[in-house]
């Protein structure tokens, strides 16, 4: 009987400990790996530019896309501010001027963003909620 109780307590302890440990681990890496979403205006208002990965979303400005063999340059705008983006990699099908876009990458400075990924969308009518909000009521 005593042995059984002991085993139970041991089990319970192990469960609690592992639960605490996992929650701690999860929260810890959440802090590190989370990617924030900003609009070009948010970028302008940033106090410091750090090296963390972020997402920038808005509209691709009219006539701003230019393509060379290894790179695509374009401008993301929220109709208040804009930011130049340079990107090498694959683009989704719905990437086009005057369409919503979300780019993930690193800020070089307040006006220049180096994207490592452009996010795809499935639906031409669909706009990421973030972009919609970043654009405001246009």
């Amino acid at each position, binding site marked *: 009987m005593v042995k059984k109780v002991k085993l139970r307590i041991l089990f319970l302890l192990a469960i609690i400990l592992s639960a605490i440990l*996992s929650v701690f*681990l*999860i929260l810890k890496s959440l802090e590190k790996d989370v990617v924030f979403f900003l609009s070009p205006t948010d970028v302008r208002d940033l106090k410091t530019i750090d090296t963390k990965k972020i997402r920038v979303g808005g509209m691709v400005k009219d006539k701003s896309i230019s393509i*060379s063999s290894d790179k695509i340059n374009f401008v993301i705008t929220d109709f208040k501010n804009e930011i130049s983006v340079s990107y090498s990699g*694959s683009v989704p*099908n719905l990437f086009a001027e005057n369409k919503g876009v979300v780019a993930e990458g690193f800020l070089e400075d307040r006006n220049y963003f180096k994207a490592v990924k452009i996010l795809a969308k499935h*639906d*031409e009518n*669909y706009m990421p909620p973030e972009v919609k909000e970043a654009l405001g009521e246009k």
Partner: protein
Amino acid sequence: MGLISSILIFTISLKSYYLKAIDKRIFSLSFLQLFFVIISFTSLVICFVISDFSNETVFNNSHTNKPIFYKISGTWGNHEGSLLLWLLVLTLFLFLFLINSRDEPKQYRVLTLVFQQVIIIGFFSFVLFTSNPFNYLFPKPSEGLGLNPILQDPALAIHPPILYVGYVGTSLIFSATLAAVVENYISKDWAKNIKLWILISWVFLTIGIMLGSIWAYYELGWGGFWFWDPVENVSLMPWICLTALIHCILVFEKREILKSWTIILSIATFTLSMCGTFLVRSGILNSVHTFANDPARGIFILSFLFLLIFLSLIIFFFFNKEKQNDSRKVYFLSKEVSVLINNWFLMYFLSVILIGTVYPIFLEVLSDSKISVGPPFYNQLIIPLLIFFLVFMSIGPNFKWIRETNINNKFQLFTLFLFSLFLSYFLFYKFGQSSLTNILLLSASFYLFFVTVKDLFSKNLYNFSKKIAHFGFSLLILSIVLNAILSKEITVNLRVGDKINFENEKISFSSLKSIEKENYQSIVGSFKIENKKKTYEFNPELRIYDQPVIITSEADIKISLFEDKFLVMNTIKGEEYFNVRYQIKPFMIWIWISTLLLAVAGFLSLYNRFHEK
């Protein structure tokens, strides 16, 4: 159409009748209910087939010049239709359950029926009040808006029904568990009965996830098969939970321990599936997979979900009685404990995914900043524990019930372990990469692989389906790991006639041609990829659909046993440059094969179950 809506309402009134009357008639009534749902579902399918645009759902999601196959699959390619499908599966399962459980106590069957009806009523009112598939449009439009062409694909056409069978199967587990708790019928017989349903939903969920993943691989043009996207996570969570439940119910069937845990798992599984519906349908998640959404629907599902959770918790706390004669001894080295440890690991993975999926939502509500949680988060948290999990999985399943006294093939296990360590180190050395976690992960997966292979070929045929399932899982992990480590890719912008070198292959873009198809225009590029041994011809395609106007790219994939070569092109701004992505993905085919193996193992186990009877 109005006729059918009234039939729906009629069925609802029947429903409330069920709840009061508990007698023999309800069984035939539930057949009637199934019959009505089938009628309304078939009529929706017919509306889609004959392109009856006076129906709003058809108008929004169909078009006359769509192939007939996609007209039918368009029925569940949208919110309203898919909910009707959900209902169909719900009622169908209930019916099958009633047929299949003749030998069970009557009270238990009736109570299961009642709980299931609560869920059915919830979904019925959901369909009727927020998303009626039979809304009437006047004047009748002459042409529909069309189905998103990206959904016009064979794998995705059958993906939702199969996934739904998996999801909805969990609802039956949920109701049956609650019924058994109330009736105090949690016993070996119950475990036997419910195991059938757990296996069915697990098999279908596995296949459903695989189909979605295959679709994402060749259709979305990213060349990956899993993106840790919220919608994918939402289907993975019930799967993990179900997997834990399968193991747990086995222990319960043999030893009648872990009772409360089994109950909690059954409830959790269903709750997670419901959460999935809520998150996907409400549009709270910002996912690339989210199509149309509507907040009213979200609120409805959310309140329904809370109601169910509340209900189940009350039942659990009030009716769950621990048996007093619970004095079985539990030894550390035993199958029970190893299953329990397996469950711990699974729960850990589950909570990582859950938090990763839900945290952004909470943060947005609380602090108004928008974040997204990507693959690095999951990789970092899951991989280290996956290593232990794999090692454990190689050893644990061979323990005996109750108490393992001597681990006989200790030596063999140890040599295998050393061998896999050595093998993965050698592989890394050869490919010139090195990272401690990768080496460990690879050797752990090799280890599991060898052990399961060894088990598979051992003379003892006992529990063959388990061995196949474990082997399938080890193969899955191994191919995913190798795939992740050894994949190579390049993305460039090319014009017709351009050439480029990649690794030791030469890629050249030779020509373009345009073809008119039934409901799209197709632009086919032709690429040549040469290496020292062989020349490959790639013909990736761009499709410009007319209704709605959408461009999709169809990748060209050369599949072989050892690697897939994947080439996809994209147009940018209609200029002469095309965005071309070329990937070499080793062992891709084995990922699908091993997932199929998992499903086959499930089927085999089901077959055994029926054979025994």
